[in-house]
């Protein structure tokens, strides 16, 4: 059986939806960060898939994905550093309590 593009895109959509769901419903900042990574990975997957099926001659999507993974790693490091600092100052990582940046 030949795998069509749909076989890759559907899991990607599921991953993205799970990410959104997790981002909106979780209260723990770490869980939110994980959800974020899920969404990011689904986007990376899309890049690769579209590159593979639509523009088989080029490598742009692949290279872009490699960069995105690297940047996502760096970003995660920063996010965790922020979360640790928040934990140190307010004693927990409940996102509903972090609402000082408002009007």
């Amino acid at each position: 059986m030949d795998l069509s593009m749909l076989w890759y895109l559907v899991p990607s959509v599921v991953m993205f939806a799970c990410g959104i769901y997790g981002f909106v419903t979780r209260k723990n900042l770490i869980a939110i960060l994980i959800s974020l990574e899920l969404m990011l990975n689904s986007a990376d997957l899309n890049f690769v898939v579209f590159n593979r099926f639509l523009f088989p001659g080029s490598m742009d999507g692949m290279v872009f994905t490699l960069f995105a993974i690297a940047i996502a790693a760096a970003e995660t490091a920063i996010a965790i550093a922020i979360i640790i600092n928040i934990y140190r100052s307010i004693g927990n990582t409940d996102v509903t309590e972090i609402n000082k940046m408002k009007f």
Partner: protein
Amino acid sequence: MDITLPILILAIPITMFLVLGIGGVKMSHKLAGILGILGMGTTAVLAYIVAFTYFFSGDANFILDGVRQQYQVFDVTWLAFTQTLVVNIGFLLDPISAMMLVVITTISFMVHLYSWGYMEGEPGFQRYYAFLSLFSFSMLGLVVATNIFQMYIFWELVGVSSYLLIGFFYKLPSAVSASKKAFIVTRFADLGFLIGILLLSFYTDTFNFVDMTTNPEGVLASTGGATFMGASVLTWAMVLIFTGGMGKSAMMPLHIWLPDAMEGPTPVSALIHAATMVVAGVYLVARMFPVYCVVDAAMTFICVIGAITAFYAAVVACAQIDIKRILAFSTISQIAFMMVSLGVAYDKPIEGVHYSGLGYMAGMFHLFTHAMFKALLFLGAGALIHAVHSNNYTSMGGLRKYMPITHVTFLIGCLAIAGIWPFAGFFSKDEMLAAMFARHWFWGAWMTMVAGLTAFYMFRMYFLVFWWEENPHYKEHKPHDAPWQMSLPLIFLGAVSIVAGFIPFGELVTWNGEPYHIHIEAPVAATSLVVAVCAIALAAAMYMKKNALPTKVKNMCPALWTAAHRRFYWDEIYMFITHRIIFDIICKGIAWFDRHIIDATMDAFAKITQKTSYAIRGMQSGEIQSYVGWYIAGAVAVAAITWLCLI
């Protein structure tokens, strides 16, 4: 003519103003005074050289076939707004500007000298000299203006100098309000002047005096017979320009500032409010004279305003106590005299006799002689005030024994203004009256009556100050003649007032430059002389020795006396109009509109913005998950719309 001298005439006073104004605080009073006097003295000498060159050199630029020419020494473009709207700055030499150069620099120099004694030890002495220099500069610039716009600029500058000098004693509330009053009233009049200038130049496409005055018919033709509210546009323009002159020259109903302007130092009154600045209006009419000649209505307007003002001011002067105010009203009256004289002067033969501008020559002659003897009278009044420390004649009386120099010079001034032969005023007044009689007997008779009143009130003041009875205060504080710096100008101006009448003025200054041979009109001269002598005799009978007659006369009609003393309530009328009508009714309505319509609209905008912001600020909750929720909702909405659009 080389342009160095004319430039220097203007440059020295303005440099003095800058030097004394900026560096004055570092100078001693003496140095500032000497600098000011030397600067003005040099200017006077240069002005004399220029004027004498103009009148007597016989250069073809100045006099051609016996006709004096208008000569622009220089005329450079200063501001070019468009192709046609160009403002020049220049130096125009013609009979009247040369004459005014002499008058201004002479009086200004005398006043500079006199002030050295009069203002001695006053705080702000350097500032005073700086302002005097500024005034001299502005006035000189005004008279030599080549175009009406330059004149307007300097016209405003003299207004500012006048404001600064009236308010020189800025700690006195009365001086401050007087300076404000002078500035506002003249500024109001200058609005008319400006509109007049714009109207005129709109049709003629030029500001230049020479262009306009050499071709008045062209000016008339350029308006193309346009009319506005029943009068031709040119009439409106000329009347509006005259309005500016009315403000500066204190014609009714804009005369109210001049009596109050006497709050300034007395030498300033002599220079600005008697001899030079207040005749700027007369000078303006004389400058535009050929154009006025083709506008009969404007000429009649000038005549009527002048005649009313002359009579009014003369009557009011009879009931004043403050000697400076008497002189102020006398100035108003005399300037009005000149105005009438210009107004009756026509470039048209009257009943076959070609009087072409006799009144013009006479008016200018009177301007010249009046400047001399009125400056003399004011400086004399300054000496009196200096001696008794009061402006009122009630503090004076019997001063002739204590102040002989002041007495003699003051008497000369009074005789000159009353028009007694051989003093200067006689000749000029005789010419003016001759011109008025030539036009219509009514003007002549009316102004002869004013001349009689003039003689009466001047000698009323003279007798009350120098005769009457001695003030008991003299025992404790003996009055004495002023120091030499003050006496010298008095003596000089007194001498000038005696001989100025013999100047062959008609040979020098006429409206078209052709010489006019002055000859005394015997009936007119005899009438005015008899009237003046009778008036002086009446004044002598009433005021020479202390008696009850003046009180009796006053009590015959106290209402009239009070009305005249209160200047026929003009100030009250102005207060009523400005406060009760303009402030209370018109301005209140405008203020209501401003507060409730304009401000309220702006407030409404602000309020709506604020309310909306409060209503929607809940979106900025600071909770990251709600932002995500909004974002997703938005993204879904955009996607939905895009999708709907695509299918």
